[in-house]
């Protein structure tokens, strides 16, 4: 499936864009990503710029999403917040994938008591709801971008480890692996050239499906105050900043939350469509 997958990637992408849901998802994600990347150019104000005479202004022509309690333009902060949230989501998934593949490969390939031990550890990690574990880790580390990424990664790597291990176990006993070993390839070489290429596509699919969840987790941590520290604009943090003022100043929490929602919808649309396409192709 792995080799196959790489060759099929262009056609998968094409099919993705041809279906309504997939197209919508790609559009949403692209627009949000574009806006985030171009934030320095598009944003009308500096996101950290406090204008105390314009505090708590409702949405208007000058500030299309209004201002917060320090007079900062919410639209600009939302744009810059996108960079943070997307970066956290992608990085944490990437890190989780890396850890998961490493542990899964070792576990599956080496087997024996190491496999047992690693799987026990994986199970232990899985006995926490992911957010709770991420929260505990993030709360203990000092607030910061890297620490948030690490916290989320440490709470989500187990599923990738399981996939990697399952595939490794499947392939391990295939004749061509034995053949490669018998002609003198080292175990590491076999791992790298034969097993990894089969593991990666499956994991990439799972990772893509999880991007939306990563954004939600990151926002959740930010909302509770254990994400990136203020005054950095982060969507979850921004929602919490408007929490006490929700009654009279709805826009402070609403817009950043809306952005979280829209970006997760985008990623989930892509994920759903991807799952449909691959389901059809890989029906047994």
């Amino acid at each position, binding site marked *: 499936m792995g080799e196959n997958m790489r060759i099929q990637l262009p056609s998968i992408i094409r099919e993705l864009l041809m279906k309504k849901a997939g197209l919508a998802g790609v559009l949403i994600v692209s627009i949000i990503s574009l806006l985030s990347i171009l934030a320095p150019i598009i944003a009308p104000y500096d996101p950290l710029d406090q204008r105390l005479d314009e505090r708590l202004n409702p949405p208007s022509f000058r500030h299309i999403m209004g201002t917060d309690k320090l007079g900062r333009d919410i639209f600009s902060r939302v744009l810059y917040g996108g960079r943070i949230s997307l970066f956290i989501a992608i990085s944490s998934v990437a890190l989780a994938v890396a850890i998961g593949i490493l542990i899964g490969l070792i576990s599956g390939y080496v087997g024996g008591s190491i496999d047992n031990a690693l799987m026990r550890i994986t199970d232990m990690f899985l006995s926490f709801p992911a957010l709770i*574990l991420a929260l505990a880790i993030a709360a203990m*580390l000092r607030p910061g971008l890297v620490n948030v990424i690490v916290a989320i990664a440490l709470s989500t790597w187990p599923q990738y480890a399981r996939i990697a291990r399952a595939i490794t176990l499947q392939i391990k006993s295939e004749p061509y692996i034995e053949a490669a070993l018998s002609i003198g390839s080292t175990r590491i070489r076999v791992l790298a050239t034969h097993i990894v290429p089969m593991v990666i596509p499956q994991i990439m699919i799972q990772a893509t499906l999880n991007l939306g969840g990563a954004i939600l987790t990151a926002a959740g941590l930010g909302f*509770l105050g254990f994400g990136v520290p203020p005054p950095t604009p982060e969507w*979850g943090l921004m929602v919490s900043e408007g929490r006490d003022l929700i009654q009279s100043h709805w826009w402070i929490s609403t817009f950043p939350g809306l952005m979280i929602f829209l970006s997760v919808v985008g990623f989930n649309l892509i994920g759903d469509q991807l799952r449909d396409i691959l389901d059809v192709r890989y029906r047994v």
Partner: protein
Amino acid sequence: MAFVVIGIATIVFFVTRVIPADPIGAILGPQAPPEVVDRIRREYGFDKPVYQQYIDFIVNLLRGDLGRSISTNRPVLEDIKERLPATFELATASLLIALLIGIPVGIISAIRKDSSLDHMLRIVSLFGISMPVFWLGLILLLVFYYTLGILPGPGRLDPYVQEPPRITGLITIDSLISGNMAAFINALLHLILPASVLGYLSSAYIARITRASILETLKQDHVRFARSKGLPWREIVVRHIIRPSLIPIVTVIGLVYGSLLEGAVLTETIFAWPGLGSYLTRAMVFMDYNAIVGGVIVIALIYSIVNLVVDIIYVYLDPRIKYG
């Protein structure tokens, strides 16, 4: 099982001891005289070397002692026991809503696949799994309480309502038991908003899984055979489509409960719900080590137990699986 508990505890313990921060100093503040800080630190055992702390911790854990909360100065276990029913009430109410809405929606969606109803329901479900739970909570609170005033605000009970005696800790049940109808209705009204928020998000997840499961079942031969028996469609749907599909859904309930616990942590403070979630978030803000460790362990334990129960039910329900 015990191994898993110790494992959980170990992870949590080391997570909390990672940074050599000084919780006592943080809580007491820089004004506190050093002797006081030292004394309290000794009292809580934070002066001992880490490995010693770990051993003490595990030993205590096995005895059911989770230490003292640094901020409330009460045993953590006591605090948790007091707050647990509130979260349980919320989680259970949310789960009921999630199942009562999610499963029928999933069934209808699958049977009327690709109809406009199916598309609509799928969009609503997609929204449900994409929404940040804390944001939805705030928005609904804004709309239904602050703006429209049709639902009560944060808290479990209005202050003017007489609180029922604490029998189970679930205000709704307790007020029913003691015949306090005013409290029952009031508590129920307070429960609606937070349970609906958590319930909607979970129902979306359940609806999606139900739909997928039923679509899988529809592909199977026994449905075609049932049709060839000339059975009425309704009977086929119930006995040959829904029943076999329910089994995978049961396994998902464990995961759903986990997300309900996460949701509780995120929304209890918004709704001023005095449960385990708000306890944990507060403990984290105050760096109350023992409370954090205790809270996380209890949540992980609840999650593990629920999943274990779900696994057992699954084995019981599916005749194809033999235990052992």
